[in-house]
């Protein structure tokens, strides 16, 4: 328990960021909720439509559902690359004796490159005409039959726009997980090894339970970032071809700023907020249950 004076000073210091958060995050969310009950194109009179926007979104908008499932696909690929990749690299790093810093830096580099540069870079990597890096590599290793225009093929485009986002932040999550892994007490590991634990048992019974709190945080971070993913798909394909790489976020943006249907776009944004809250709730619930079991 803090003494009175300290409690007051904590409140004084917490209030400005809280106000800023309220103005920058909570207020727009509530304003979106308000606008979602209206039909408004920005210059017309606002017309109250009740739940019509929600009914349209859930029952009559095929692009919305397509974007929703695309967003889930995008999230899955990002999570596998970011968390799975980060865990593998971090685990391998702990067994390295030399060059750890160099490898950490190399893996972290993409996180500091501008999004636009990454998007343009990958457009070139995926290109078929002129032949980009990926198609060239496939050709060199004798898999020429797999060559394709990755960003124009409706079957590959979603994975193609998800991979750069996953690749970009793998290094960042690797760094966080690596920091957690090296904090695992050595004596515990040594005792387990003496008891004859395999590397896998060592990982599942000792290391992972120890890093679980960090893992939860990184999973929440990666999931919310993944659900909010926008810039790379928007820059690389603008949601195309067709709606093959359209995410809820890019769809909402287009509905607001291209179709100028601000009411309906607000309905989409309310859905995204709820979706993020549900996702975080689910993660906490699942990991808690696993920890208890």
């Amino acid at each position, binding site marked *: 328990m803090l003494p009175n004076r300290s409690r007051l000073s904590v409140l004084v210091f917490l209030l400005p960021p809280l106000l800023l958060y309220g103005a920058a995050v909570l207020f727009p969310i*509530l*304003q979106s*909720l308000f606008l979602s009950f209206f039909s408004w194109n920005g210059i017309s009179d606002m017309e109250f439509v009740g739940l019509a926007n929600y009914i349209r979104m859930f029952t009559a908008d095929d692009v919305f559902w397509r974007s929703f499932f695309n967003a889930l696909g995008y999230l899955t690929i990002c999570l596998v690359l970011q968390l799975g990749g980060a865990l593998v690299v971090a685990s391998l790093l702990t067994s390295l004796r030399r060059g750890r810093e160099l490898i950490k830096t190399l893996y972290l580099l993409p996180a500091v490159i501008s999004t636009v540069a990454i998007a343009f870079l990958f457009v070139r990597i995926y290109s078929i*005409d002129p032949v980009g890096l990926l198609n060239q590599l496939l050709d060199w290793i004798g898999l020429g039959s797999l060559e394709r225009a990755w960003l124009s093929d409706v079957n590959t485009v979603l994975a193609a726009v998800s991979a750069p986002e996953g690749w970009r932040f793998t290094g960042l999550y690797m760094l966080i997980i690596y920091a957690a892994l090296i904090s695992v007490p050595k004596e515990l590991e040594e005792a387990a090894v003496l008891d004859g634990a395999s590397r896998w048992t060592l990982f599942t019974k000792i290391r992972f339970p120890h890093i679980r709190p960090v893992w939860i945080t990184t999973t929440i971070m990666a999931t919310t970032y993944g659900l909010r993913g926008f810039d790379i798909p928007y820059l690389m394909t603008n949601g195309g071809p067709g709606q093959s790489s359209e995410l809820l976020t890019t769809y909402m943006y287009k509905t607001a700023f291209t179709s*100028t249907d601000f009411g309906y776009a607000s309905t989409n944004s309310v859905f995204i907020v709820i979706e993020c809250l549900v996702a975080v709730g689910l993660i906490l619930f699942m990991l808690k249950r696993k920890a208890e079991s």
Partner: protein
Amino acid sequence: MKKLFRTAAVAAVTALALAGCGGGGVSSPSNVTPTGEIKAREISWLLSRPADGAVINIMKKLAEDYAKDHPGFSLNLITTPDRPSYIQKLETLAAANKLPELFDTDATPFAQQLAKQGKMVDAEKLLKTLNVYDNYRPAALDYQRFDDRSLYMIPFQFELEFFWYNKALLQKAGVAAPKSLDDIPAMCTSLRKAGITPIAIDGQDQWPLERYVAYQPFREAGPDFIQKLKKGEAKFSDPAGQKSVEWLAALGKAKCFQDGFSSQGYSDAQNQFTSGKAAMYNIGTWELPSLATDKLNPAVRGDIDFITLPTTEGSATAANEFVSPSGIGMAVNAKTYDPLVSDFLKFALGKYPAEYAATGALSPTTDVKTAIPANATPLYKKAVEKAEDLGDQQAMPWDTQLDPTTNGRLQQELVLLVQGNITPEQFTNTMDSTVAQNAPKFFK
């Protein structure tokens, strides 16, 4: 929680009400001769044109000349050349009632709503008052008009869109330049067989492919088809619409466009053509400096020629009627229109055409002659001369006609149709229901 919601709702309403209050004081759009003293200040032009292009350079110079007699005057040019980004900026500013003195817009349904709300000055009256209206090419003004023939935008360009082609590549494939639109799929098949990319297209920006959907209906049913289609009075399932859908599917089947075209940009497409890889390229006279001067790759320079939009059998429109846009137009904000803006426009619009034509571009007016650059190839003159032989009708780009939601969906579905990911029937059904759902909101 309930209380928090109520407070937020009140705050939101207050914010909107305040935004509404800020927008008061709209002056009459038909009053083109404001009276009073000319008080020099900075005025802004929100525009979507290349930053180092002729229009901006000339207007900068004219603004500097005007400022010599009106100390304190300056023209702040805020350009966003990327059109989708620009449109988003414009629409957001319009929603916030913060449009500057001058702003660019096409004759879109959104712009028409702004005009109806009295937010734009009547350009026809303005040009007539300035005694320059009759100088303008009718086609240049028609391109800027809304459906009811009213005019709220002033053109600064005049362009003609051609099908540029590489004679040597066509010859290599044993085909001639298409005489009819219906010849194009067969031409593509022959070119592909010879290992040549038939048509280079900028798929990333979407409007170039949208041009193609307009061609068959323009030839089959004339310019009225899109006017009706956008309001839901005509359909893609009508004969003219079907002809277009089937033709586009045929273009896709014949692999007319370069592989992976949907993710290739403007310069990719141009490079394909100017490097001699692609046989055809559909682009306007704004590219004359790169296609018809000694800047063009010498390896293809002697092989390049162009045709205008091919006709079809029983075509409703003539060979000299095709896409001849006068570019994005400039609208004058009625709210901020005052003696200064009026006087500056009088000064600038009087001097602009001569300066513009001197750069080798086609002026939207007929009172000046385009200067052919010293480094031009014979094609330059040939292209410029086409402007003197235009018919009365012109093919309107559909992206300036359709409501924004339908337009966005059309651009997406076109790629799928041409790539063969959807059938013509699926395309027709999707687009007809999209128009039916969205058009009424914009064209009621």
